[in-house]
């Protein structure tokens, strides 16, 4: 009886975490999808890059935190979270380096 209730508690924690994961993923996707409905295609890619380098970093940091939390809570999907963490770390590093050397990032300024 005791172990059964422990399992159900862990299951509930995992379920809660997964919802948190989906909510965070959803907000990240929405952040990039909304501009595509508002601006012409001609400037969309530039706006998306700018978004990824500015406010997007905030969402990336948030999602990174969620995935790090996931490593401890939802061990069955550890590999997925590690992959996402690596991707988000690369994204944040790219933004950081871009801002440090922005005057040399011609591909951003065109």
């Amino acid at each position: 009886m005791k172990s059964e209730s422990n399992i159900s508690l862990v299951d509930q924690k995992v379920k809660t975490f997964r919802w948190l994961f989906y909510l965070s993923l959803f907000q990240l996707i929405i952040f990039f999808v909304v501009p595509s409905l508002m601006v012409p295609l001609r400037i969309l890619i530039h706006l998306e890059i700018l978004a990824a380098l500015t406010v997007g970093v905030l969402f990336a940091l948030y999602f990174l935190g969620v995935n790090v939390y996931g490593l401890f809570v939802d061990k069955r999907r550890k590999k997925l979270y590690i992959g996402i963490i690596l991707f988000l770390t690369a994204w944040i590093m790219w933004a950081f380096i871009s801002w440090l050397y922005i005057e040399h990032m011609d591909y951003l300024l065109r």
Partner: protein
Amino acid sequence: MANNDRNKIKRNKPILIRYPFLRALYLFIVSWLIMLTVLLIIYFAWLREWQMTWGATSEEVNRYMAGDELLVEPEFNTTRVVEINAPPEEVWPWLVQMGYKRGGFYNFDHLDNAGIPSADRIIPEYQNLKVGDLILSLLQVARIEPKKSMLWVFLEGAGGWENATWSWGLYKTKDGNTRLVTRLRQKYTSNSIQEIIMWRFQEITEIFMMRICLLGIKKRVEENFNKE
């Protein structure tokens, strides 16, 4: 334990524990609130001062610049500086050719110059800038002192930017280099909560564009100066 008792206990649990989605939503909102609060504290304690005076010394921040007298105690008052390894006369041509569908703003061209690449050479036809010329629709040259300073003011119809001035100054250092100073000042209109939020958002993001612009000028001047 009888099934009835178990169900009773389950029903008595708080709603957030019973429904994982609601609990996740609660965690999502609370964690965002905590993160935003922490970021706002960091911003007002340290980042705001840094971004408002990026690259400037306290002397440069307190020094008079053209147009300072036009706005009394503006809420948004920035002085940003970049040092360029070239004398002011080499920097000036790059400044006067700035503008929409002119030399550009040395920035994200797709956002502020209709996708036309900012100039990477001095353009002779844009060198005769004078008072009254438009830099951007509703942004006009108000004062100009060749090779020293320039003031741009926003015109009526520029929305919340009507109460704003944008000043440029070139100062020669002892080494013969240039301190390029730009001062953007704005008195916020606060007619609605949306406007107040918008100005705060703009305040946080504007540094990105200004920094790229200043570094873009530095890069172009130094590359061309070194070629000569």
